[in-house]
C-alpha cells in the first residue's frame, strides 16, 4: 500500500531544491530500456522509469481487422494503453476505465505524427502498452517505449518520439514526477516531443501553471525528451549489436 503522505506537514521540495526521493529539480528518475524481449510480435520494448514498469508490443503492419477500418491510402495506427490489475496500490479492475480510454487516444495522437502511415495502405499497425507497475508518468513512459517498439519493428518513422511529465512542487517547476509528487503536487504536465523536428505531439495539463511556468515547463520537458532520446538510441544500438554478435555465433 502507498504510505499516506500529509503534504501539509512534509514539503515535497526542501528549501535547497531536493525532492523527497533525493532528486534535484531537473533530475529525471532512473530509466532502463530494453528492446526485442518478446518473440511473437513485430517489435517490443520494456521501460522502467523509477518504479513505473511498462511493456510494449507492436504487431504489424498487417491486414486491418475488422476490415471496414482499413484506409485505402494509409495504415491505421491502433493503440491500447492498459494497466495490469496488480500495477496499482489497490487492485485495478481489468476492464478499461474512462481514463485508460482517454490515454489510449492521446497516446495514439502522440505517435501518429511520427509514424509514416502512408507507406502501408490498407494495413493496421497495432501498439499495445501494458503498465505492469504504475508510479506516475505511465503515459509518457508508455510513449517512449512505444516509439522504441515501433522502431524495433522496422516501421519507418519521421522522427523518434519521447515523453516526460513535468510538474510543480512548492511553486517550482520540476522534472518527471513520481507518484507521491503527482498526488500531492500542484501541477502535472505530460509532454511528448519529436526530438529532431522539435515538435510537441502530446500536451496535457492538470493543475495550475502561470504563463511563465508553462513556458519553463515546456523547456524542461524538451531537455527531458533529449535525455530519453539518447537512451532510446542506445537501447536500439545494443539490440542490433547483440543481434549481430548472435548472428556471428550461428
Amino acid at each position, binding site marked *: 500500500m502507498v504510505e499516506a503522505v500529509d503534504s501539509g506537514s512534509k514539503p515535497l521540495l526542501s528549501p535547497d531544491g531536493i525532492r523527497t526521493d533525493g532528486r534535484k529539480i531537473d533530475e529525471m528518475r532512473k530509466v532502463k530500456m530494453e528492446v526485442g524481449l518478446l518473440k511473437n510480435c513485430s517489435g517490443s520494448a520494456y521501460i522502467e522509469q523509477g518504479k513505473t514498469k511498462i511493456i510494449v508490443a507492436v504487431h504489424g503492419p498487417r491486414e486491418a481487422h475488422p476490415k471496414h477500418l482499413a484506409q485505402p491510402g494509409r495504415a491505421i495506427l491502433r493503440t491500447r494503453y492498459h494497466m495490469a490489475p496488480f500495477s496499482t496500490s489497490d487492485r485495478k479492475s481489468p476492464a478499461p476505465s474512462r481514463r485508460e*480510454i482517454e490515454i*489510449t487516444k492521446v497516446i495514439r495522437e502522440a505517435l501518429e505524427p511520427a509514424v509514416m502511415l502512408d507507406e502501408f495502405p490498407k494495413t493496421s499497425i497495432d501498439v499495445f502498452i501494458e503498465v505492469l507497475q504504475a508510479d506516475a508518468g505511465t503515459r509518457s513512459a508508455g510513449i517512449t517505449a512505444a516509439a522504441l517498439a515501433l522502431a524495433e519493428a522496422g516501421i519507418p518513422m519521421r522522427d523518434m518520439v519521447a515523453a516526460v511529465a513535468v510538474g510543480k512542487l512548492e511553486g517550482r517547476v520540476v522534472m518527471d514526477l513520481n507518484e507521491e509528487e503527482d498526488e500531492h503536487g500542484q501541477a502535472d504536465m505530460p509532454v511528448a516531443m*519529436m526530438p529532431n523536428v522539435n515538435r*510537441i505531439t502530446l500536451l496535457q*495539463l492538470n493543475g*495550475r501553471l502561470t504563463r511563465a511556468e*508553462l513556458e519553463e515547463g515546456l523547456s524542461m520537458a524538451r531537455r527531458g525528451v533529449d535525455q530519453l532520446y539518447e537512451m532510446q538510441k542506445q537501447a536500439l544500438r545494443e539490440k542490433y549489436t547483440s543481434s549481430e554478435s548472435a548472428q556471428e555465433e550461428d
Partner: protein
Amino acid sequence: MDSVNSISEAAPLRLRDLNAVLATGVREDGRKLDEYRNIDIKTNLYEKANGSAMVRIGNTVAVAGIKIARGAPFPDTPNDGVLTVSLELLPHASPDFEPGPPDEGAIEMSRVVDRGLRESKSIKYDELCIIPGKSVWIIYVDVYALDHDGNLQDAAGLAALAAVLTAKLPEVKVEGDTVTELETKRPIPIVETPVPVTVAKVGDHLLVDPSAAEEEVSSVRVTMTTIESGVVASIQKSGSDSITMEEALKIYDLAFARAKEIRGKLTAALGVSPA
C-alpha cells in the same frame, strides 16, 4: 482501440483552398482568425434539476443539467465533496453521432470538461462535506451535445460551468449521523471561473473557436482552461498532428484573452459570479 481518421480522404483539396482563404485573415463565416462566435447562455431550464444551462455558440448547442445526492466521500479525500461529469453526444446533434455508450471522443471531451472544473481547484470541495468521512454532496454534471457546428468542447465546458454557477444545494442540519435537508438553499461554493477556449490549427493558422467545417480540416485542436488570474488550469491537445512550443504559448495567449471576454458575458448573463 478505435482509430479515428480525423482528416477525411477528400480533405487535402479543401484544406488547400481554406489555407488560401485564411491567409487573407478572414474565415469562411466572416470571422477574424482570433474571433469567437456569438455566445448565448440560458439557465434554470429544468425544475427537476438542481441547476441547468444551455449554451449556444453560433449554431453549436450544449445543455448541462445538475443533480445532487448525498453519498460517501472517496477514502483518500474524506472531507471533500465529489463532482462527476458525464457527456453524451446526442444523435440529435449530427448525422454522424450514433446513440449508445460514449466513444473515445466523447470520453475525452467529458474528461476535459471535468478537469477544467475539478482540477482547477476553483470549487471548494471541503465546503461540500456534510459529515467528514461519511457523507458529502455528490454533484453530477450531465452534459448533452444537442447541435454540432464545431467546438462542442467549449460549448460543453461553458454549459457545465454555467450550470454549476447557478445550481443550488439545500442547507442541511446535522445531528449525530442524522442529516436533515432544510428548505433554504445555497450556491455551489466556487471561487473562480475556469473558462475553456479551444483553438484549432488549420494549415499554419491558429483559429479560435473552430466551426464544424474548420474542425474537419484541422489537424490539431488545443483546449486551454484559464482562470481570472491568468493561471492555466487544464490543457488538452487533441488530433493527429504536432505543434511547436511557440504555438503552445500563442494558444495560451489567445485562450486567456478570449476567456476574459467570455467570463464577462457569463457573469452578465447569469447575474452571478464566483464567491
